[in-house]
């Protein structure tokens, strides 16, 4: 066991953790917006919108995240009009490509989580709102959304942890996140176990924090 290497690689890995956290937080924010949007589409009675949302989540949940990143990072550059458009400023950066891929991926899972939360809301709440003469819009924003968010907290907590692990794939498109730096140190020192313990420890610590934060929220908003 090479303790010196563990000590010297710790600050480097901690620095890389910032990249991981940035990737995670941005993709979760975009993913939540996408997820809410597609969950609402999914509840729509219009068959085209409904199917569209279904296929979106089916495709992104049925294929590996690695394929999605590669299509966006390596594949989209092939399309001529994308290269000449203003979008190219974003799409040529591996950083943004990774965020787009992660957001679309977590958006698909989030939409499923929120959809099932909306569907399991007790009808009595909505009927109670109706009978009190509250408008459909306010029922949606003030009754359905808060209940759905509370219902989906445990599943969404899992999704955050899955996404934290998913950000490790950013290292395959040249980004130096926690896993990327860990791999670099392993391949230069050939001490996989030491680096794994330090990097894995950082990941576990983050998982632990997320897990407990969601638990706290669950308790706070339990009814």
């Amino acid at each position, binding site marked *: 066991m090479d303790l010196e290497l563990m000590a010297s690689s710790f600050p480097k890995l901690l620095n890389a953790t910032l990249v991981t956290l940035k990737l995670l937080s941005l993709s979760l924010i975009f993913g939540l917006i996408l997820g809410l949007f597609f969950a609402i589409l999914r509840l729509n009675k219009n068959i085209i919108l409904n199917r569209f949302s279904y296929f979106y989540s089916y*495709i992104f949940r049925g294929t590996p995240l*690695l394929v999605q990143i590669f299509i966006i990072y390596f594949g989209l550059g092939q399309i001529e009009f994308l290269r000449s458009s203003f979008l190219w400023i974003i799409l040529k950066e591996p950083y943004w490509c990774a965020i787009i891929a992660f957001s679309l991926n977590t958006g698909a899972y989030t939409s499923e989580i929120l959809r099932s939360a909306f569907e399991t809301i007790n009808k009595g709440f909505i009927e109670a709102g109706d009978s009190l003469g509250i408008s459909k819009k306010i029922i949606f924003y003030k009754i359905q959304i808060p209940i759905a968010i509370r219902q989906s907290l445990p599943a969404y907590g899992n999704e955050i942890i899955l996404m934290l692990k998913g950000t490790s794939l950013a290292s395959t498109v040249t980004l130096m996140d926690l896993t990327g730096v860990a791999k670099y140190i392993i391949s230069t020192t050939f001490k996989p176990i030491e680096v794994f313990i330090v990097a894995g420890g950082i990941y576990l610590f983050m998982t632990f924090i997320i897990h407990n934060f969601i638990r706290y929220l669950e308790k706070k908003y339990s009814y």
Partner: protein
Amino acid sequence: MELLAFGNTGWGDELFLATLMTIAVSITAMIIGFCFALIFTPLKLSKNKFLNFIGNSYTTIIRGVPELLVIYLLFFGGSGAVMYVASIFGYNKYIEINAFITGSFAIGIISGAYSTEVFRGAIQSIDKGQFEASKVLGLKKPVHFFKVIMPQMLRLAVPNLSNVWQITLKDTSLISVTGLVEIMRQSYIAAGSTRDPLFFYSFAAVLYLLLTFLSMKLINKLEIKYRRGY
């Protein structure tokens, strides 16, 4: 379409073989995962604090650390570990482990952690009366496990195991980083030599969708079989 022709002119046969490789790795990893689950589920359910700690550490660590990191650990550390064990037995030559074995083992460890959780959940949701009844009847331990607990556990576990299968199938794409030629690696090679990454990666996505879709159909049939009353 010419790109997908079989034979020397296209990538059809290579991609077909790569798909078979993905299936082979997934099945091997799933089986290795079951072996891990068979070891760690009893540990997790054990009343002994130390054994319990080992069982919990396995599932917590593997489920909390990215799959890619586990794969790198085994890829860079696997042959070293095997050589170390071999040197204890007096064998000092260089040993290289085949990418298929490393890959399936890495994915197997990950899939095993999920399977362990599924089995634990299934056993815990079996009615307590069943355990008490077999105790009262004086059934021997193996009979109790294989004839009473196992059939009920499998029935409860099948739906969740289908999720584990889907996760495992998708995780196999990650072992392309070790150089094993499965769907992702083959698409990478094809995309590099034809300069058509969009087509090949999209085709890889279609192949994965096909695999998840077909396995879903198969598992649904299995579920109907296990859902029958008893």
